[in-house]
């Protein structure tokens, strides 16, 4: 298998996630797109760890992927709490309406 198979799949998922972040205005859907981006990064970490024929590098890539998964879990928890708060204050999760800091 070529390493580029995995890296290009990561690039495709990353770009789809970026499109989702830009084009969605429901807060929960934006968080889902961010999850897509983080998963694309995980594919890259594991694939690049496996690229060298070296078990230490492979394990290092896996450990960093695990850290990214943990941080993604923390991010979703806080993000959903914030979106819940927005919903409670404005009865909508439309991110276009959240423009309190607009100059």
């Amino acid at each position, binding site marked *: 298998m070529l390493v580029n198979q995995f890296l290009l*799949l990561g690039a495709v998922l990353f770009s789809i996630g970026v499109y989702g972040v830009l084009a969605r205005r429901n807060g929960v859907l934006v968080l889902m797109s961010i999850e897509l981006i983080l998963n694309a990064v995980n594919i890259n970490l594991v694939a690049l760890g496996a690229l060298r024929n070296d078990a230490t590098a492979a394990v290092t890539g896996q450990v960093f992927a695990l850290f990214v998964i943990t941080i993604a879990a923390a991010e979703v928890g806080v993000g959903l709490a914030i979106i819940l708060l927005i919903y409670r204050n404005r009865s909508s999760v439309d991110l276009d309406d959240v423009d309190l800091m607009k100059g």
Partner: protein
Amino acid sequence: MLAQNVTFGILAAAATLSALRVVTTKNVVHAALYLVVVLASIGALFVLLAAEFVAVVQILVYVGAIVVLFLFGIMLTRPELGRSAGLDNDQRVAGAVTALFLLGVLSFVLVDFYGDDKLPDLSGVSRAQLTAERGTGAVGDAIFSTFLVPFEVVAVLLLAALVGAIVLARRD
């Protein structure tokens, strides 16, 4: 090799098509369910890369916990389920152009730099050696020796996020 490539093709197609549906579907719950397909496919790709522990954690944490959290978030912020208009804003074209441009640049760089670099062929290595060198035990050893400090930092970060989420979400 052929079986690996066929498996990769199926999983990559499933992940890409489902990811496209996640960002285009008109139904929020469907988006969460398509996200399950994406995450499970990526978990299977980790198995293909001989990263068994990451694959299991991917299924447990993402499909098991995060998607459930998303479904709770949808349930709490959107009383009426089903198709709904107005999930997208008016910058869809600009977003698509940006994403395609990004994909083009990334693909060019990756093809240019990695070209035809092959992943090492592990079929000659014995299963016992693979498990010992890059299996769950090796990952655990690395976490609790080389990466002990980052691991503890991540643990504190999770605790802080937990407390922060409770403080934000409780009403009083």
